[in-house]
C-alpha cells in the first residue's frame, strides 16, 4: 500500500515539475525509481518510457489543437527517432546495471549544470528577451 501511494506521489511531483519547468518526466522518474524505490536501472528506464508514451500522446493532442506542431519536421524527426531509440535501448539493455546507472548519473549532472547556467544567463539580462519568432 505504501508503495502504491509512493508511486502515485512520484507521478504527482514529476507532473508538477514537468508542467512548471517545461521538462519531460523521464529525468524525474528514473532517478527516483532507482534511488528511492530501489528499482533496477533497466526496469526504471523501461517503466519511465511506459509513462512517457501515453503522456506524450495527450500532450501532442493539446499542442496540435493549438497549432504548435510542425508536422513536416515532426515526422522525419520521429521516424529517425524510432531507429535511434531502438539502437539506444538495445545498447542500454546490453550494458550492466552498474555502468548504466553511472552513465545516467553523469547525464543528470550535465543537465543540472546546463539548467543552472541557463537560469543564471536569463538572470543576467536586464529585460526579458522577446520571443524569437
Amino acid at each position, binding site marked *: 500500500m505504501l508503495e502504491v501511494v509512493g508511486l502515485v506521489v512520484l507521478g504527482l511531483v514529476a*507532473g508538477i515539475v514537468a508542467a512548471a519547468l517545461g521538462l519531460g518526466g523521464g529525468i524525474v522518474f528514473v532517478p527516483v525509481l532507482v534511488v528511492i524505490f530501489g528499482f533496477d536501472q533497466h526496469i526504471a528506464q523501461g517503466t519511465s518510457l511506459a509513462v512517457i508514451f501515453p503522456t506524450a500522446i495527450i500532450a501532442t493532442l493539446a499542442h496540435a489543437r493549438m497549432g504548435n506542431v510542425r508536422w513536416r519536421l515532426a515526422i522525419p524527426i520521429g521516424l529517425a527517432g524510432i531507429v535511434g531509440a531502438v539502437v539506444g535501448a538495445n545498447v542500454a539493455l546490453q550494458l550492466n546495471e552498474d555502468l548504466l546507472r553511472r552513465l545516467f548519473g553523469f547525464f543528470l549532472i550535465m543537465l543540472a549544470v546546463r539548467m543552472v547556467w541557463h537560469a543564471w544567463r536569463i538572470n543576467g539580462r536586464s529585460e526579458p528577451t522577446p520571443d524569437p519568432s
Partner: protein
Amino acid sequence: MSRILLKAIALGAVAGMIAGLFGVGGGVIVVPGLVLWLALAQREASGTSTATIVASSAAAMATFGVSGSVDWRAAGLILVGSVVGAWIGAWIAERVNERVLAVAFALILAIAGIRMVL
C-alpha cells in the same frame, strides 16, 4: 534531400538514441535542436518535440518491454499521479519565479546524479 530534412533526420537519430539509452523522452535534445538549429519559436519547438517523443518513446518502450524490463503496474500508478500533477504544475508556473524553481530542481538533479555515479 533538402538540408532541413537532413538536419531533422540527424536530430531525430541522436535524440532517439538518448531516449533509448536513458529511458527519457529526448525533449532535452529535440527542443534546443529545433530552436537553435532549425529556427523554430519556443512554443512550436515544444509542440513539435512532443509529437516526435510519441514515436521514439513507443519504440524504446517496446524494446524494453520485449526484454521484460517494464514494470507496467508501477507505470500505471505513476501515470495517474502525473496527470493530476501536470494540472497543478501549470497553476504553479504562473505564480512562482521560474528561475528559483529551475535552480532548486537542478540542485536536486545534481545530488541524485552524484548518488547514482558513486
